[in-house]
């Protein structure tokens, strides 16, 4: 950041010098719209509004500019002119006022600003990405990827539950790389869209074209690869594309809702390739991160969210960022309707009304699913056996009943074949303890929970 400020300073100071050496008319016509993009290896990259400016500055003022820049930083070797619009802060207020006097509704274009050449949604940038303990590793890895695409971590595999910001992160990588180097061919796709491509190519006998298409990219970003599960032809094509990109040091980024080892029906050669670079998970944001995310999103909507309210929302809504966003939208909408800010009770009400209620799962269901997961007969859970392969699922069932469904200890005991409540307490405590330092158990419990949803 400081470097960026310095670069800006250099150009600002140079402009002061240039202003003295050219006529005022000339200065305000040709130099007002310029900005500095970057300074690299002694070359200063100046952003100009169009080709007219580029040609004119290069033709007529190149020496003046170079002299002024050398005066400020002596190691300047050259100047390059790049046609680029300066990124300005959007004049939000102006737009708002414009809208109120327009009685016609607007076409819903805003959601369709996706660039068709690379499929990237410009909305997803690192500026709006909140980094917290839950995703800092993934963020660091993505920064490393940006620094040296195709070299540091290739492929980068990011996994995590739905609504944890995977798509945001991987699209931000694409957008950032595009911003840094416009000539890079970047392509974002979902595995589902990739599948459609392959299927229609097979139908039309143009599979070769699809191969060519995917092989030309410098950066390939594929979202939700778990959907490749069981689709052999797609996996095969992806395998070949992967190899050809990988050999040419092209960056590949994948995302999935689970670790590659847990994606079922995935050929081993693809699985091992997913793991070749870097596999990182993004978990559910912690409380502080949730507050930060709420604030960022609120600022994005030009909405002032008080500390107190953001704390309350973050407390009430756990997990999923999408839920958080939904609640926030609801709060903004209600505030606008009411005309005054909401109090804590209003917020609690909104949260209660909007979060989907926990699905009712019967004990029988729970037992069935858990026993299926551990591959034991569900009837043995109720029996008095102390076999190791039965005890663990039984304990997990008890733990889940207590934790997720808030059933009392005696009832749990009673439901699971008339056990004493102390047995149940012991089991719950045991699982709780083990969860703290046994990641594989954590994963198992998480997966069972996912199955119950």
């Amino acid at each position: 950041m400081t470097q960026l400020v310095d670069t800006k300073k250099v150009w600002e100071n140079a402009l002061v010098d240039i202003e003295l050496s050219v006529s005022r008319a000339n200065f305000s016509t040709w130099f007002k719209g310029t900005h500095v993009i970057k300074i690299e290896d002694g070359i200063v990259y100046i952003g100009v509004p169009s080709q007219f400016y580029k040609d004119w500055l290069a033709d007529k003022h190149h020496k003046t500019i170079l002299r002024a820049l050398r005066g400020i930083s002596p190691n300047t070797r050259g100047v390059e002119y790049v046609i680029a619009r300066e990124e300005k802060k959007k004049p939000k207020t102006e737009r708002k006022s414009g809208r109120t006097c327009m009685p016609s509704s607007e076409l819903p274009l805003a959601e369709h600003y996706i660039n068709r050449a690379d499929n990237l949604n410009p909305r997803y940038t690192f500026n709006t990405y909140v980094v917290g303990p839950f995703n800092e590793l993934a963020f660091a890895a993505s920064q490393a990827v940006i620094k040296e695409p195709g070299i540091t971590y290739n492929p980068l595999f990011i996994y995590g539950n739905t609504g944890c910001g995977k798509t945001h992160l991987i699209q931000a990588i694409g957008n950032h790389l595009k911003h840094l180097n416009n000539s890079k061919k970047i392509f974002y796709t979902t595995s589902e869209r990739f599948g459609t491509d392959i299927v229609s190519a097979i139908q039309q006998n143009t599979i070769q074209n699809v191969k060519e298409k995917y092989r030309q990219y410098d950066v390939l970003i594929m979202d939700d690869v778990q959907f490749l599960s069981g689709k052999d032809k797609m996996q095969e094509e992806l395998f070949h594309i992967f190899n050809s990109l990988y050999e040419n040091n092209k960056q590949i980024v994948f995302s999935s809702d689970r670790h590659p080892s847990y994606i079922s029906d995935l050929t081993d050669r693809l699985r091992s390739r997913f793991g070749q670079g870097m596999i990182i998970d993004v978990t559910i944001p912690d409380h502080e991160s949730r507050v930060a995310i709420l604030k960022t999103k609120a600022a994005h909507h030009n909405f002032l969210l008080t500390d107190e309210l953001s704390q309350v929302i973050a407390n009430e809504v756990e997990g999923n960022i999408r839920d958080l966003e939904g609640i926030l939208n609801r709060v903004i909408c209600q505030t606008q309707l009411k005309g005054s800010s909401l109090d804590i009770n209003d917020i609690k009400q909104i949260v209660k009304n909007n979060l989907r209620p926990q699905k009712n799962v019967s004990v029988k269901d729970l037992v069935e699913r858990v026993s299926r997961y551990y591959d034991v007969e569900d009837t043995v859970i109720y029996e008095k056996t102390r076999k190791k392969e039965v005890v663990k699922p039984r304990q997990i069932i008890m733990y889940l009943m207590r934790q997720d469904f808030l059933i009392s200890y005696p009832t749990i005991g009673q439901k699971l074949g008339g056990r004493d409540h102390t047995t149940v307490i012991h089991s719950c405590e045991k699982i709780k303890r083990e969860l703290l330092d046994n990641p594989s158990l954590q994963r198992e419990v998480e997966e069972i929970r996912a199955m119950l949803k």
Partner: protein
Amino acid sequence: MQCTVAREQLLEPVIQTEKTTIKKHTLPVLSCILLEVTDNTLLLSSTNLEVGVRFTVPVEKTTKGMVAVSGSVLAHVISSLPSGTEVVLSSDNGHLIVRSSEGSSKIALHDTEDFPVLPEVEGGKEITLPAKQFRDTINAVVYCASNSTIKPELSSVFVHPDGSTLIAAATDSFRLAEKKTPLKHSIDSEPFLIPSKSTSNLLRILEQVEGDVQVKSNKHQLSITLPNIYITLRLVSGTFPDYTQIIPKEFVSEATMLVFDFERTLRKATAFSDQFNQTTITISPKEKKFIAHTKNDSVGETTDTLAAAITGKDLVISFNQKYLLDSLHSITSDSITIQFGGQSQPALIRPVGNDGFLYLVMPMNR
């Protein structure tokens, strides 16, 4: 500098280049036409830093040289000369002397030093487009482009030669027009965005051409080179929204009517329009009625019942009548179909029997 040229040869280039001049107090030379005489040719150039044009005119009895004179004055002088005369242009001591059989005018010169160079397109691709189709396609949509400068991609015309179809689209987010013109040859090119302000210059030049034009473009600049004309213009960098996704596919009601009837009704309505140009349309398929009603408290109101074939549900919906009227200019067939998506859903206007044009318009908030 000196040259001799027939007035008719000179008139059009002078008028055309004058259109691209601009009054800019920071760079006064932009209000000028640059005249440059080389061996038997006269080059006339002008630019407003968005568009640049250069005309080449064959001339006789030349002495090399280069001057810049006020575009409006020169255009005035040349157009006022009687037709069929021969014009002698010469420069001396700070003036351009325009001499004809009738008399002579002296026009003050500007410094040519500050006159910008017309850029060439670096790299980029070249495609061949039929001039007439290119012009008509842009013309059919350009009025929909936004006037605001906040979103440059919306104040421009999206042009996409896609296979054997030339597609143009423009929207200001309240209405959208798309025109598809079939081409004889297949051309594949990246889409580009022409700033709507520059289209008038481009269209005027294209009017001069019969047959095909070579369009060369890179990401930032587009140029067309003809035997005697060169035009270059800045393109908007950015992404045009993928509007194909918002074109509705399901409708609640549909009305087909004569363009002539609808246009007459809307024209009459403009006299009664309020500040929002609101016209309310009532459709009732059972009674086979299509009623347009416009009311202004201080003027009065007007109601028209149009002959129309109507299917679907009853609907009362308001539109900006200017938006409706705009769409009719680009429609060449006799009748149109308006498909309504329901309250606060866009309506789709299409000419009957011609699928090339479509117009999407949002209703007014009630």
